[in-house]
């Protein structure tokens, strides 16, 4: 339903239509710009990204075979690891040597491949925790509830709205550790939104989630973009998912960005197929089948909702 899509996203899509599908191509309005970021582990170069820009207000998928350096790249971008060289900026601000919590405070929030729910805290406490600027998180005001009760009420209100959006309101008072794997994924995404980020980085949000829940999680991710105008960068292995929700796909292999472009252009890209199969064209690899099947899908992305 394109009518529901916010204006910024529509504008971003139109602007992106003329961007050529080649690695490192400049974007009209990038929120994240990466330049020459390299990370070595001993002799192995895990990440070697020459240039990459992530367009604002869109969903960008980051795909690649196992060991391509996608998660390491996420870690580097969000301050959980530091590169050996290179620089990158978020929203015009240089992020070199900026610690992880500051990156989050600036508005780039990540989730993890292995869900990090705070098990022995209730769902609502998980949510409240993520609220920013709470005075009661400082040592001295903490023991004077009147200094933070009002903020807490506002945070709770926002948390309840998000819990409802992610269909977790019934679990509000449950310990997060009692949730199912899929619900925890939902909670982690909802929690990340409590930070009110500009850019959300989701590391395999669909991994280990049952197919029924995948559909609803997909819907949620799409609504981040369509309703809130948020920028989403996500790592995913499931090609159906990638083709379904992303506006732009970046392919990594052996640490490098080997291809990028609109989803449909990726499936037919020779370099990508070679990267997945490790050499010349062949058959029998599920990922190839997925790529091709999805590429043959005539439905234009973005109109799927």
């Amino acid at each position, binding site marked *: 339903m394109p009518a529901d899509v916010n204006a910024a996203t529509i504008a971003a899509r139109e602007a992106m239509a003329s961007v050529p599908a080649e690695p490192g191509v400049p974007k009209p309005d990038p929120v994240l710009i990466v330049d020459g970021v390299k990370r070595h582990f001993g002799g192995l170069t895990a990440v070697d990204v020459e240039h990459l820009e992530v367009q604002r207000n869109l969903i960008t998928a980051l795909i690649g075979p196992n060991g391509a350096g996608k998660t390491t790249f996420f870690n580097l971008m969000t301050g*959980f690891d530091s590169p050996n060289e290179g620089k990158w900026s978020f929203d015009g601000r240089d992020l070199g040597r900026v610690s992880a919590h500051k990156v*989050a405070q600036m508005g780039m929030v990540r989730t993890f491949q292995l869900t990090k729910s705070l098990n022995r805290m209730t769902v609502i406490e998980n949510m409240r925790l993520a609220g920013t600027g709470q005075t009661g998180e400082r040592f001295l005001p903490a*023991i004077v509830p009147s200094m933070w009760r009002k903020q807490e009420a506002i945070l709770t209100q926002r948390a309840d709205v998000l819990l409802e959006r992610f269909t977790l309101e019934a679990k509000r008072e449950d310990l997060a550790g009692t949730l199912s794997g899929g619900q925890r994924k939902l909670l982690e995404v909802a929690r990340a939104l409590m930070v009110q980020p500009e850019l959300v980085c989701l590391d395999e949000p669909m991994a280990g989630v049952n197919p029924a829940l995948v559909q609803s999680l997909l819907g949620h991710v799409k609504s981040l973009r369509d309703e809130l105008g948020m920028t989403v960068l996500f790592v995913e292995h499931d090609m159906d998912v990638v083709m379904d929700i992303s506006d732009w796909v970046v392919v990594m292999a052996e640490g490098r960005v080997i291809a990028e472009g609109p989803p449909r252009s990726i499936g037919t890209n020779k370099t990508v197929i070679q990267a997945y199969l490790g050499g010349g064209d062949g058959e029998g690899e599920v990922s190839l089948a997925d790529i091709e099947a999805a590429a043959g899908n005539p439905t234009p992305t973005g109109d799927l909702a």
Partner: protein
Amino acid sequence: MELGNVLIDGLRAALGVEAVVFALAAIGLNIHFGYTGLLNFGQVGFMLVGAYGVAIMARQCPSAAATQSAADQIGPCGEPLIFGVILGIVLAVILALLLGAPTLRLRADYLAITTIAAAEILRFLFRSDTADPLTNSVFGIQQFANDFFVINPIPAGRYFGQLNYSSQQLWTMVVGWSLVLLLTLWTWLLMRSPWGRVLKSIREDEDAARALGKNVFSYKMQALILGGVFGALGGMFLAIGTQAVAPDTYIPVRTFFAYVIIILGGAGTIWGPIVGTFLFLFLTSGLETLLRELIEGGIIPSSFISLPEVGPIRFIMVGLMLALLMAFRPQGIFGDKEEMLLDAR
């Protein structure tokens, strides 16, 4: 044979100065381990600096010092006790900063190794000949807390029947338990606040907290300092209550007894440290009396257990009880079993 003595000895221990000291150390350790997940194995180091802070500041000056072997004493002396308390707190903060700065960014076990080593280094340093002018080495410092007993408002006499407390003991206990309750109240206020929520999130998963914009290092440091200062207050209280400090009072096993106490009471609970202290000291002390009474009454033949063996045997029995507790109630008295099991996932 007097079985009533078992109860009396148990209660005396569970309410006395030693109990206050353990409760204070355990409340601090509970902030570290129970709420923040910091493995501090050197709580006794914080107790030591607290105790020596008071003792060195308030000790008698050389002319009057009967126990000081020579007049080569250096450093402060004869200052008001309250200055000693302030010094003890300052030293605890410095110790926490020194321990935390290099280790809190690393994995939890590094803090454990560093803290246990630091506590032992401090003990050996304070008992060394080199430190003698400051600490009077192995002999320690005595009779420095008269300030505290001078202001005792409780008239001289014996109190509480068979518990038979002197007015000075009672005064110490009243002040001590008030301090325990005050710090418990403070901990409770903190832990129900958003500040405490951040600590708990660090215990659960510090990367998640970091990803949500929390300065994990700073919060861990705050927790380490706060719990360390509570431990130092425990050390000060031991020094003041007994009017004595000696380095070998501050051996690593004190830290582990504090761990036993919070695990017994329930880690990460408000009343856990107090109830754990009460039970631990009641059981260790009561058991000793029970065994002695049984041996003296001829019920246990002294060929089986002799009186000198009672001390070690009660600890064996306490150990056994702990093992049973871990098997049947791993969450402690106040802990929540459901929560405990989630942790294992």
